[in-house]
């Protein structure tokens, strides 16, 4: 049967509404996803017990599998917040963005992406990106215009800007994981701990392996003398501390792990 699940994935109106709303929002943080799930239960099946989020999502994913789409969970690189997005696994191009942007704008994004991936820090400076404006496909774009386009990317959550430099938003990493691995197989960096795509992170100065900041935090948790997991050399960077249940606060590492923070919702 086309479009039907080959396993016994259960698709009720609760799941359908969840999918609709997840798609509408593009990318959501875990706290919002939980709230969304609760809302869908309330609307369609208020007497049922709310399934654990992980099982709920796995259930839906088993139905989506045959459609080559998936609810993917990722973690923001700078402060370890879990995020969720519905992604298309079958794509090998920047297809999600393609309908939003003109040809030259898409090419600007590709150029910025390439610079980000090739860089050591995971950031590409505004100047370097803008210098490539003459090489863009499509209609000629001036630097002023390109600055505006970069801001559009930031607003649509494809890029993050920090002090004049740009890196990939968690959403872009989630959605373009496959595209990036296929397009830049040699330049792509991978985290030594979780093996997923790495844009920002810390690296060992001796052997060069890299780790995401949240992965570093978890791996070296309560370890006063961190050593590289690969070459065992002393780990030269400050180990960040994250509270994984932080909600909607900008990433700031704090020295006190157990600081009490009241939930906003």
């Amino acid at each position, binding site marked *: 049967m086309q*479009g039907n699940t080959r396993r016994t994935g259960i698709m009720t109106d609760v799941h*359908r509404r969840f999918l609709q709303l997840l798609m509408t929002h593009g990318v959501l943080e875990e706290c919002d996803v939980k709230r969304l799930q609760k809302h869908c239960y309330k609307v369609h099946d208020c007497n049922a017990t709310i399934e654990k989020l992980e099982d709920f999502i796995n259930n839906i994913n088993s139905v989506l599998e045959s459609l080559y789409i998936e609810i993917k969970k990722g973690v923001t690189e700078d402060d370890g917040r879990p995020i969720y997005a519905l992604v298309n696994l079958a794509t090998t191009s920047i297809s999600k963005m393609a309908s939003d942007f003109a040809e030259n704008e898409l090419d600007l994004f590709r150029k910025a992406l390439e610079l980000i991936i090739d860089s050591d820090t995971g950031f590409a400076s505004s100047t370097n990106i803008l210098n490539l404006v003459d090489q863009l496909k499509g209609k000629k774009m001036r630097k002023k215009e390109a600055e505006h386009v970069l801001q559009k990317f930031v607003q649509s959550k494809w890029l993050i800007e920090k002090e004049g430099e740009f890196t990939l938003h968690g959403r872009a990493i989630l959605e373009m994981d496959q595209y990036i691995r296929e397009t830049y197989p040699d330049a792509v960096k991978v985290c030594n701990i979780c093996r997923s795509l790495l844009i920002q992170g810390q690296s060992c100065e001796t052997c060069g392996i890299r780790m995401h900041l949240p992965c570093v935090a978890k791996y070296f948790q309560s370890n006063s003398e961190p050593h590289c997991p690969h070459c065992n050399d002393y780990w030269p960077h400050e180990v960040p501390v994250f509270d994984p249940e932080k909600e909607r606060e900008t990433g700031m590492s704090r020295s006190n792990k157990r600081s009490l923070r009241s939930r906003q919702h």
Partner: protein
Amino acid sequence: MRTSSPGVRGGKADSKSSRTRRPCSCETEQICPNKAPGEEGDPKALQQAADEGRPHQAPSTSQLSPAPPAPAQLVQKAHELMWYVLVKDQKRMIIWFPDMVKDVIGSYKKWCRSILRRTSLILARVFGLHLRLTSLHTMEFSLVKALEPEELDRVALSNRMPMTGLLLMILSLIYVKGRGARESAVWNVLRILGLRPWKKHSTFGDVRKLITEEFVQQNYLKYQRVPHVEPPEYEFFWGSRASREITKMQIMEFLARVFKKNPQAWPSRYREALEEARALREAHPTAHCPRNSVSED
């Protein structure tokens, strides 16, 4: 968001002739009735195909497994089209049939009907969305929620759908005034949200561009010069898309929430909203059938 225009639906009697002509494995060209030369796919027939994809209208499942030359590739195209439609809808862009053909269906134009049928079926079963032809003339489709109760789901994430809130504020201002809202009036209202035309906002960005260009492009608003006024002034009206997707009752509910009043505090507007709601119910008596089945078809 809800559409309030009557969708174009061919009766089943009409479609018999088009249904017997289906792609067959010997690759003869499929003949669409009423096809203009060079144009593939009569939109009405396409709407039928889209409708056939809806489970509670599908005549029998055997009709949904045609014998095209490359079934696996047709399935893949249907999946691509599904994603394409979902993304367009997410971006609140118009889903235009010629774009669908150009961007997704491509060389499989001959089988666009069966692809469309399959896509509609998937969208209905998995997402609870109907792919509906909203305008025969312009060949526009839209995704309509098929689940009960229909409401703007902003309730779920009320502080996370700022665009809708912003748009609704402007639409409700226009509605309450009963005519176009001058740009100055709109800015007075937006000032309450802390928005100014010259200030960039952390969520909305350039607000003025958003409301005078983007919302206008998406047909949610119309931005027109006020005639015979010097120096030039502009005013906002509801766009065609707003009229289709947002009901007056939704506006009343929004106003009630924002001002913490009963919607009947605007008596003439409330009456209008009630009348519209009644007219819509009469136009779509079978529009909402709650489906909660575990296994379908």
